[in-house]
């Protein structure tokens, strides 16, 4: 079985066979001395996509972005944008623009001058420059701030100016390095949706680098998860979350409970995994390509676990443990449950009623169960 088959093919270009990618990254490698920052990455991004490169610090995502912008020269491999090889094109001639993490606004220039800078370098007539600057300012809702200097703006305002400046040349590809990283949580959430709106209205292809998985989930048409310079999985946000292909991805995106086990029964329609860690047999309701007695991992998200006081029927998919901790988060409560094997399992329950005196609490003995299709089997 493969996860991808469950997603129906529709109009999305990356799902259509034979669709021509807009950006083609082919076997790209970047070494700094002995250190391999980007390791043999191949990636296709399609027109008008909002593609997120997601990874921790040092995963190579920023280096990849900087190679697209032309600030770093690849050690090997090629980058093609709209059919054009970028190998010998310096950054000032590329059809890309970048929005920097620090925003990199020119401190000695006003907001208008900052935004106009790119057009002036292209020798655009000054009447057109001022029109387009005004358009950009209104697009990012900064029309009243054109005469200010960057140090007279708040973080959110600077972010808007940086966005306007990087969009004004109508690049074929906009590169955004942690575009919302410097904003506080509330502002970040609002800005995410604005960013999507702007991207959709302009139709420009965006590649966003972020370490924030929530941000990637909200923004992206597709996500590429990076680790140690490699892209470990590419997929749409639900696909990445529900069908991770490795323990790294499962663990990196959201939170997950992972059980190590061995294949006990392998059938066309199901597999049975024996896990000492879980203290129960795990029944997976679909076929898995595996060898008998093979070691593998079963991953299940905390919200997919059902919490009960009474032991459910059956002899599989049942965990027994003691509530060690309950964290009330407002919209949901997170239970930390210690199994007999000593393993801690996380389960979440949404708080549908305001006050629940019957709620499961500290030091109670509980059972956890889940649907046979709720988790994923991971082989690496």
């Amino acid at each position, binding site marked *: 079985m493969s996860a991808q088959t469950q997603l129906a093919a529709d109009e999305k270009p990356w799902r259509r066979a034979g669709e021509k990618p807009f950006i083609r990254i082919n076997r790209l490698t970047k070494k700094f001395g002995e250190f391999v920052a980007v390791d043999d990455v191949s990636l296709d991004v399609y027109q008008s996509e909002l593609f997120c490169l997601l990874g921790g610090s040092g995963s190579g995502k920023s280096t990849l972005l900087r190679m697209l912008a032309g600030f770093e020269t690849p050690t090997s491999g090629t980058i093609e944008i709209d059919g054009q090889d970028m190998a010998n094109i310096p*950054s000032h001639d590329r059809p*890309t*623009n970048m929005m920097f993490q620090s925003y990199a606004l020119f*401190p000695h220039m006003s907001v208008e001058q900052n935004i106009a800078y790119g057009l002036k370098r292209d020798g655009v007539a000054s009447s057109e420059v001022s029109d387009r600057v005004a358009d950009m300012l209104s697009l990012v809702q900064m029309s009243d701030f054109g005469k200010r200097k960057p140090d007279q703006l708040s973080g959110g305002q600077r972010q808007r100016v940086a966005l306007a400046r990087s969009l004004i040349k109508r690049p074929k590809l906009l590169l955004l390095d942690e575009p919302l990283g410097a904003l506080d949580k509330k502002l970040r959430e609002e800005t995410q949706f604005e960013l999507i709106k702007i991207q959709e209205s302009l139709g420009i292809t965006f590649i966003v680098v972020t370490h924030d998985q929530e941000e990637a989930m909200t923004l992206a048409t597709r996500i590429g998860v990076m680790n140690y310079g490699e892209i470990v999985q590419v997929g749409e946000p639900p696909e990445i979350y529900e069908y991770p292909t490795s323990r790294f991805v499962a663990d990196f995106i959201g939170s997950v409970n992972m059980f190590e086990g061995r294949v006990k029964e392998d059938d066309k329609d199901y597999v049975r995994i024996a896990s000492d860690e879980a203290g129960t047999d795990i029944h997976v309701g679909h076929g898995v390509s595996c060898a008998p007695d093979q070691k593998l991992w079963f991953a299940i998200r905390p919200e997919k676990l059902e919490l009960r006081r009474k032991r459910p029927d059956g002899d599989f998919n049942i965990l027994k443990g003691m509530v060690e901790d309950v964290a009330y988060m407002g919209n949901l409560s997170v239970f930390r449950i210690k199994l007999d094997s000593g393993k801690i399992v996380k389960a979440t329950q949404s708080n549908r009623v305001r006050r629940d005196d019957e709620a499961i609490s500290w030091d109670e003995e509980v059972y956890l169960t889940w649907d046979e299709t709720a988790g994923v089997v991971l082989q690496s």
Partner: protein
Amino acid sequence: MNNKFRFLPIATFLGFAFLYVPIIVLVVFSFNKSKLVTVWGGFSAHWYGELLQDPQILGAAWISLQIAFISASLALVLGTLAAFVLTRIGRFWFKPLLSGMTAAPLVMPEVITGLSLLLLFVAMEAMFGWPAGRGFTTIVIAHTTFCLAYVAVVVQSRLSDMDESIEEAARDLGAKPVRVFFDITLPTIAPALMSGWLLSFTLSLDDLVIASFVSGPGASTLPMVIFSKVRLGVSPEINALASLMIGVVALGVAIAAWQLLKSPQKSKA
């Protein structure tokens, strides 16, 4: 507790008095009417007038200003280049050594700098006839070498503080490297350049020891003239001259410091 609070202002006062009373005395006595330096004979600006009549002093002042201007400007260019090399060219194994060597003239005893330059000039003249004799040119060269170190240090610190992504942003928006330098880099480091130049200018104006070594007939700088006059006895005229120099140097240093302080707010990420 109280004692401590009383002690601090007193200590501060004494410290500053130690530093500045001699200068204040000098300035006050430059307005002394009496011909005797140590006896107060009433207020007068007479000696300043006298100063303007003295061709030797005026000539020396003119030479000093020219030397200071030229060597500060040369040091600015060379020091800035050195600063760029030291901050922008990636890591190489002897970079710390190079960096230390650039700054070494700051702590080198002037007598040694002066002597070694003198030996160099003499040897060069013997080998290929340039610089012919000692004088204006040799002083300019000597001052440039030690001022360069100051400029390099000041500009280097500014450059390493600078957010390089603003240069990348300019490149990204279509500016060629030269354009980036003039549009972005230069305005950003301008305060450091300004203060480096002013610092060099005042240092050159101040210098007595090195100039004495490498100077020749006909090129006496102002400090040299003052020093030779003082050896014959302090005159109120010298007090007046010294007061003027203090004024010029203090102004230069003050502007340099102000330039460095007001330099654009470090961009908060």
